[in-house]
């Protein structure tokens, strides 16, 4: 991962400055790299998000106990979760739920447990924590997010977490000074490619003060990625080339190992 922070910071600074409303506090953030290139032998890495809380004249002087929640969400897609059950002595998929437009990668970081940052009500409204993030499901003809302890929802979150694609860490954000903070964004080997949105929310005394957003992109490069894209977008040509490759290999073998 190459560091292109200086440029990015300038870009972000102007962006945040221009968009900043008349809030008492302002967040200025940047990620260490806005374009992560994943090569075939990539085995995981980490991005760093850093930023600071800027106070202005209107900020009450005694404000200092800030809390931060960082939400990173990757490209969205529909996914099906299936459950196996025993039928006629064998284990088969019997029940399934479709999750609509759920992020392929989801990480929630904060400087202390969500319960200490805000009330349960605020947590739900601001979607703090994996239990409170909206994961839309299709239940029959209905669209809804169910209770956090729903069997399919928790299995879905658990399986994604096992692959490092969904994560929650309530001590990942560290304040270097009362207003300067940083957090790492771990990216496992299987990260889906696409645009990742990073939302940073600043809380104080259990209430949201301000928030800001940034983004980064993950691109896969190399021969493997070329093959994957061709297979998806140009199935006929891909099949033709694969079949031709098979015939060539077979023909070569019959020449190399010819006995007569």
């Amino acid at each position, binding site marked *: 991962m190459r560091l292109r922070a200086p440029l990015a910071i300038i870009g972000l600074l102007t962006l945040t400055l221009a968009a900043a409303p008349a809030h008492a506090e302002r967040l200025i953030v940047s990620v260490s790299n806005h374009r992560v290139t994943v090569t075939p032998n990539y085995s995981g890495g980490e991005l760093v998000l850093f930023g600071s809380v800027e106070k202005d004249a209107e900020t009450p002087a005694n404000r200092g106990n800030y809390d931060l929640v960082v939400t990173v969400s990757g490209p969205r897609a529909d996914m099906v979760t299936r459950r196996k059950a025993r039928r006629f002595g064998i*284990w088969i998929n019997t029940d399934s739920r479709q999750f609509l437009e759920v992020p392929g990668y989801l990480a929630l970081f904060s400087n202390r447990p969500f319960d200490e940052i805000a009330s349960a009500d605020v947590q739900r409204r601001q979607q703090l924590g994996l239990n409170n993030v909206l994961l839309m499901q299709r239940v029959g003809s209905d669209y809804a997010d169910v209770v956090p302890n729903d069997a399919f929802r928790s299995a879905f979150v658990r399986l994604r977490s096992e692959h490092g694609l969904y994560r929650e860490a309530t001590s990942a954000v560290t304040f270097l000074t009362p207003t300067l903070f940083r957090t790492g964004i771990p990216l496992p080997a299987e990260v889906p490619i696409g645009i990742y949105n990073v939302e940073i929310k600043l809380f104080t005394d259990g209430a949201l003060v301000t928030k800001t957003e940034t983004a980064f992109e993950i691109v896969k490069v190399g021969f493997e990625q070329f093959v994957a894209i061709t297979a998806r977008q140009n199935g006929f040509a891909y099949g033709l080339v694969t079949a031709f490759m098979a015939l060539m290999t077979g023909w070569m073998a019959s020449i190399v190992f010819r006995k007569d």
Partner: protein
Amino acid sequence: MRPCACAAANREEATRVQLYLPIADIPVNVFLILAMGAAVGFVSGMFGIGGGFLMTPLLIFVGIAPAVAVASVASHIAASSFSGAISYWRRRAIDPLLAAVLLVGGTAGTALGVWTFTYLRSLGQLDLMIALSYVILLTTVGGLMFWEGLRAMLRARRGGAVTLRKPGSHGWIHGLPLKLRFKRSKIYLSVIPIVVVGLVIGFIGAIMGIGGGFILVPLMIYLLRVPTSTVIGTSMVLTLVTMVIATMLHAMTNHLVDAVLALILMVGGVTGAQFGARAGQKIRGEHLRLLLGLLVLAVGIRFAVELVIRPQDLYSIRESGGVPP
């Protein structure tokens, strides 16, 4: 089935030979796949079979999605059967007319098979059907082969003459209409059973990722009475064409053919087959059949066990279209 969180040093070592499979979407050890290709190639050369029924399960057992395994092995079998078909063609051991009639059924069967494959996948029952088909087919065929081999061996030990049915005897198959004369095979036979055999093999092959040689050859010998001089070469032509069609159709409809995986398998497979063929000539026929039967049976049982024991995780996630990555 993901690799464990191993020590850092181990990981370092592993990444050097690690290759990322673009369609299967998992990193694999190149040498492991190459070795698997060579081992299956060895076995297939030894027994004169395509080896798909071993290759596909092995890939599934190392963690490649069954659907990807089936689609990718199709092209691997195409490669090995092409090199086989070339050498049989040089020896004039292929009956072109018989192959053409078989292909009529084979092409239709393959198309039907890929369509069924796509349909089952949308239902979420493809993996189960692949496993079930393997259990049924492999335990039956393996059991029969094993039994046959055992009986032949006992007969040989007792010194009795091997009593095959007389070649001149006519079954119900020979009463069917639309008869054709197949000159090179020197048989006079209705096209109906031949088309049906092609259809069945094409269908099974597309769903299970096998060439079907180990079912096709016995069917042609015992049912259609094709002489041994042309049976293997002709069956290879059917395997070759159905597998090329299967590769094309799988690539066009399901986008599941992993060309990188297929290429490694091909290279390993065609090399292993050469050594296997030499080894096979040193073993007696009935021993060979007994061994092959055992092997087929073992793979079938492995699948059965997988289905019966409680899975580690009852839940699974699959992407279901939506936003393409």
